[in-house]
């Protein structure tokens, strides 16, 4: 049987190689962007507005655009997403047709490519509702895109904590809403926050849908009706039009740093949920 064990060792080695290869891909991408981009990062780069279409100056307006658009998206999506998660887990019968339909739509929504959301946002918000290329159009389009993530993570968090708490609270004569508000939501909060953090990551990185709905103006967005360029859109345009490789690297570097931080925070918040459940 020495042959079999030799073969087993070989297979173990191959599987380890697969795992290591994944780590190398990730390390390669992140390492390369950080290595090439770190030198462009400076306080000026972050605080100065771009000039001459991004050849000079920093990226401050695109940072503001990103934050602005993300906040608007969260403002619209979080209440709706968490609200429907509460409804699906605490009020609806899980076998009811309506609950099944909503779950199915949420899954479908999660699978639709961002370019299709972009087309929709363009024809609906920009043209039909007359919002033009604006932070609002982009934010609302983004809100629809992150809705499934927020709802699903909230549903999972509620499902994970609710069972016994729900029975105990209802048995004390609490109403559904009292049970939700006082016991279930506080204990599910870390899971809900995880979903929100992951959505921020998605909003920061989204490009295709934003170009078609928020435009690509380099001006500083003040009103929600102003057009705006996000960091990701900026990176795309700089790279595609060969405007400034150095500044493109700086922008990419900043995005990657943000994404790494966001992922770390999401993990932290998730581990807090599991700890609370113990």
């Amino acid at each position, binding site marked *: 049987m020495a042959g079999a064990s030799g073969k087993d060792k070989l297979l173990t080695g191959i*599987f380890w190689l697969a795992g290591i290869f994944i780590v190398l891909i*990730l390390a390669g991408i992140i390492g390369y962007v950080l290595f090439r981009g770190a030198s462009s990062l400076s306080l000026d780069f972050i605080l100065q507005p771009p000039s001459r279409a991004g050849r000079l100056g920093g990226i401050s307006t695109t940072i503001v655009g990103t934050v602005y658009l993300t906040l608007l998206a969260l403002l619209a999506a979080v209440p*709706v997403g968490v609200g429907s998660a509460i409804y699906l887990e605490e009020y609806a019968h899980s076998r009811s047709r309506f609950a099944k339909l909503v779950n199915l739509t949420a899954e479908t929504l999660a699978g*639709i490519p961002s370019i*299709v959301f972009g*087309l929709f946002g363009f024809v609906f918000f920009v043209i039909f509702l007359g919002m033009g290329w604006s932070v609002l159009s982009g934010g609302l389009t983004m809100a629809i895109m992150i809705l499934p993530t927020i709802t699903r993570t909230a549903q999972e968090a509620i499902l994970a904590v609710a069972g016994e708490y729900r029975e105990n609270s209802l048995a004390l004569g609490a109403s559904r*809403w009292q049970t939700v508000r006082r016991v279930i939501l506080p204990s599910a909060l870390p899971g809900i926050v995880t979903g929100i953090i992951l959505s921020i990551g998605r909003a920061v*990185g989204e490009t295709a849908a934003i170009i078609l709905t928020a435009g690509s103006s380099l001006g500083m967005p003040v009103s929600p009706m102003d057009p705006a360029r996000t960091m990701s859109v900026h990176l795309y345009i700089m790279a*595609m039009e060969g405007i400034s490789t150095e500044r493109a690297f700086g922008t990419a570097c900043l995005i990657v740093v943000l*994404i790494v931080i966001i992922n770390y925070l999401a993990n932290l918040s998730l581990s807090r949920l599991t700890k609370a459940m113990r």
Partner: protein
Amino acid sequence: MQPISKNLHRRGESWIEKGLAFCAALFVIVIAIITIFIFARGLPILLKVGVADFLFNTDWRPTSNSFGIGTMLVGSLVVTTASLLWAVPLGIMTAIFMAEVAPPRASRWLGALVELLAGIPSVVYGFVGLVLIVPFIRNYLGGNGLSVLAGAIILGIMILPTIINISRDAIRAVPKEYKEGSLALGATHYQSIRRVILPAARSGIITAVVLGMGRAIGETMAVVMVTGNSPIIPAGVLSPVRTMTSNIVLEMGYAAGDHQAALFATGVVLFVFIVILNLVVNMSLKAGAANGRR
């Protein structure tokens, strides 16, 4: 029979339930509006040109009223297939590694890294492809680098997390007894994986591949940045190629009239394709042993 009372409200709380139900209903409303608006803009021209002509005609000259997305359809399929060719085997192997081979700590770490891989925006992948992979191909393999190959490499990386996560969960969901039964019969660990665990996890792994494919077909920014975007059917892996999604994002900026409608029609094609893909996955999941709640 006594019907079950669901009345667990205090005074004034029934409107809360209505509000929450409305939030949930918004999902249905939103998807209905999306469908209506995309179709309203795209379907007329699709019907005017004819579905078959629109899909398979390779003549895309929107300025002279010739709308055939055949070239881009082939482009999407070629890039997607090429990316699946390497990402599926690697993804499934990594999933097996995480579920069956790696020590728990290593598996957890790798899981966190795969999440990070999933979190990196497509525009960053596209950028890295443009500055790293495209020059590499140009210098060592030939052509100008912007190619099917570059697209397949970048897309493959992007769909790895989908394939890994779903396959891993499917493998982990296989009842322990199967593996123990196999080991008890004197099979080695790897014989058990190949003959018992993988067959048992088959439907989950197929789901992973299908969803990975959906993601690859719909991906836009990364592809547009590395594939060169020439509207021609690629002659080989080093040729440039234009996908349906690239076509939309490249031309929406200046398209008007029927041209714009044709881009929406491309959106309709993508939308229908993805929705069908999702429904099929959903149904096959439900058909294959209703484990879990959903």
